[in-house]
């Protein structure tokens, strides 16, 4: 993965970092504009929940236009309530950084599923279940009404395998409304072609005005790939890909899969029509055609079958809630002020080990793993106010001073209040190794207190599996394709 080349933030914020009411467990992915974490939310009376938390990358946090876009994504996605859409549940700001929380989907995205099968076509029932679910999600978004009761004309604009999550339970969720736009507001003159080159519609490639039928074209591409296992529009470079899409120039499915059902090829041909007028008028119409096809051809559309396929492909990976033992010392009340990360050893140093010296690592993790403020000191403090300096790049230069100001960050955490109740056999082995293996670097950065190790350093050692590559680790729960920098 290329993320290691991304500099100090390559590993993301350290385990245990607080953002609003959430505690970060690990980073799932990072794109050019935002990072995605799996995070833990706690509430009163033992309420706790695992969520996915999306955070604007720091260098974009100062860009008002981007922040507006990011928040618009959150608002739009939050307004979409559908079983096939990953719900946005919260939006927040912590120390000047914006984030939103959404439903965590424990599974893999469609790109990973296809890759995992060496790009063999999915079983037809599974492929149609997935595409049907996405069609339902899209139709819901397309039909979404504004506050005035009129359709907003939302268009997702980035329907691609990496944005389709398949839960291990067999649920299908469309994610990433990052560039969703109300059609009426779509501008074609901003100089940016958004979306992924292989999954645009002809009108999107041209920079033309788009509507919901653009998403239908993209869904047609997803259907093609799920049922053939290969790219519908492939070329050695992006502009050649866009050109082929603009001409709707793809290899007919039966040339890829000799016994490809002609009726399904017709559905694809309609969805992949160059002229939007010739496509399915709605995603629902496409979904109905797929269901009719399945009915006629005796193909069963079943979430159970999909779950079985996922289990056959990926086994039964541990859910992140099994990480929660590591958070034993963190305060449970949601009303607690947000505290910067306790002096828990960071995962970042482990990830960067071999790339940088301990000193460099210390600087790299400083903004978040720095001085944890004693809980009693910050009780009642405003979210915005906490540790703001430490989170800003300038804090790097101020590191020594801040360390002296807060010499005992580990003391903020009651020792071993809760030991892990679940032994974690394999999840996140790199990260967990990081908890111990990287302790030196982090301690140097944040505590300088050898006599009071973080509670997490005192956790009983876990069984460990042999080292896994980032890809192997990533395949488990990521919402984004490995192609994204992590």
């Amino acid at each position, binding site marked *: 993965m290329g993320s290691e080349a991304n500099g100090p933030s390559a590993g993301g914020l350290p385990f245990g970092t607080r953002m609003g009411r959430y505690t970060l467990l690990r980073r799932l992915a990072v794109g*050019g504009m935002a990072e995605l974490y799996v995070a833990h939310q706690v509430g009163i009376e033992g309420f706790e929940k695992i969520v996915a938390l999306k955070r604007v990358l720091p260098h974009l946090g100062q860009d008002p236009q981007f922040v507006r876009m990011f928040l618009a994504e959150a608002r739009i996605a939050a307004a979409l309530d559908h079983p096939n859409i990953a719900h946005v549940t919260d939006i927040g700001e912590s120390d000047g950084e914006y984030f939103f929380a959404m439903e965590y989907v424990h599974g893999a995205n469609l*790109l990973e599923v*296809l*890759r995992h099968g060496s*790009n063999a076509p999915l079983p037809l029932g599974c492929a149609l279940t997935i595409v049907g679910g996405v069609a339902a999600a899209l139709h819901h978004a397309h039909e979404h009404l504004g506050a005035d009761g009129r359709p907003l004309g939302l268009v997702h604009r980035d329907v*691609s*395998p*990496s944005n389709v999550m398949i839960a291990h339970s067999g649920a299908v969720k469309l994610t990433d409304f990052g560039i969703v736009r109300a059609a009426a507001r779509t501008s*074609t*003159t901003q*100089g*940016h*072609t958004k*979306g*992924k*080159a*292989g*999954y645009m519609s*002809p009108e999107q*490639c*041209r*920079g*033309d005005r788009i509507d919901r039928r653009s998403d239908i074209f993209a869904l047609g591409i997803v259907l093609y*790939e799920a049922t053939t*296992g*290969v*790219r519908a529009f*492939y*070329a*050695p*470079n*992006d*502009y*050649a*890909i*866009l*050109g*082929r899409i*603009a*001409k709707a120039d793809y290899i007919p499915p039966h040339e890829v899969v000799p016994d490809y059902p002609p009726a399904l090829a017709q559905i694809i041909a309609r969805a992949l029509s160059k*002229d939007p007028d010739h496509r399915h008028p709605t995603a629902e119409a496409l979904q109905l055609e797929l269901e009719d096809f399945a009915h006629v051809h005796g193909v069963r559309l079943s979430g159970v079958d999909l779950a079985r396929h996922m289990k056959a492909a990926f086994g039964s990976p541990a859910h992140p809630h099994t990480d929660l033992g590591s958070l034993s010392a963190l305060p449970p009340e949601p009303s607690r002020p947000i505290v910067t990360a306790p002096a828990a050893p960071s995962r970042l140093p482990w990830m960067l080990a071999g790339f940088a010296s301990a000193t460099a690592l210390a600087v790299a993790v400083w903004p978040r793993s720095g001085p944890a403020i004693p809980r009693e000191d910050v009780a009642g403090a405003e979210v915005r106010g906490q540790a703001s300096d430490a989170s800003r790049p300038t804090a790097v230069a101020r590191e020594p001073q801040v360390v002296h100001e807060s010499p005992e960050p580990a003391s903020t955490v009651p020792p071993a209040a809760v030991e892990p109740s679940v032994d974690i056999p394999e999840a996140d082995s790199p990260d967990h190794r990081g908890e111990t293996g990287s302790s030196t670097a982090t301690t140097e950065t944040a505590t300088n207190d050898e006599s009071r190790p973080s509670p997490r350093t005192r956790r009983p050692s876990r069984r460990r599996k042999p080292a896994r590559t980032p890809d192997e680790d990533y395949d488990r729960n990521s919402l984004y*394709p*490995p*192609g*994204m920098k992590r």
Partner: protein
Amino acid sequence: MSEPASDYDLLVAWRQGDPGAANALTSRHYASIRRFFDLKVTHLAEDLTQQTFLAAVEGVDRYRAEAGFRAYLFGIARNQLLRTLRKQGRHEQAMRFASAAAPSVATPLSLVAARREEQQVLLMALAQLPTDLQIVVELYYWEGMSSAGIGAVLETNPSTITTRLARARQLVQQHVAEMTRPGRVRDSLLTDLEGWQRSLGPLTAQANARR
């Protein structure tokens, strides 16, 4: 004021280990070579650009002054490109079936050149051309090179270049018609295809200059 060193002088100085000469020479021609590759093998453009300069230094003895330095450099770039495409061609089937990786559109071209729909469509149409026709169009419209200079790059005579240029125009028109619906963009492009072609030159140079 002394005259700026010629490209050839810089090349020789580079060959003799002068890092300043290397910097000066690459600064002059980086954007042109980079965009040469951008539209053809996007993801390898950076590497191939570097390899082109290194090959230029290594092969300085083969430099022919009469063709000009740019013809020499683009000739090397073309050879690098053809070699790469041959390799890709051998693996085309495997590549197509091996990966459904999410591609990126974050190329320098895509960031700048899509300001107008016409330019976006034209870039897509150019990308559909056979490689040598693409090269002819780019060197003619974007680099402002003569038929003789382009002939030196493609190792053919100038009259052939004229013929290829005409053929390229014809194909671009055809692709534009296939990619667009009747309307303003298509009309605008087909009415002044040459003007739009030339407009891409500064834009693509600007794209690389931003890097």
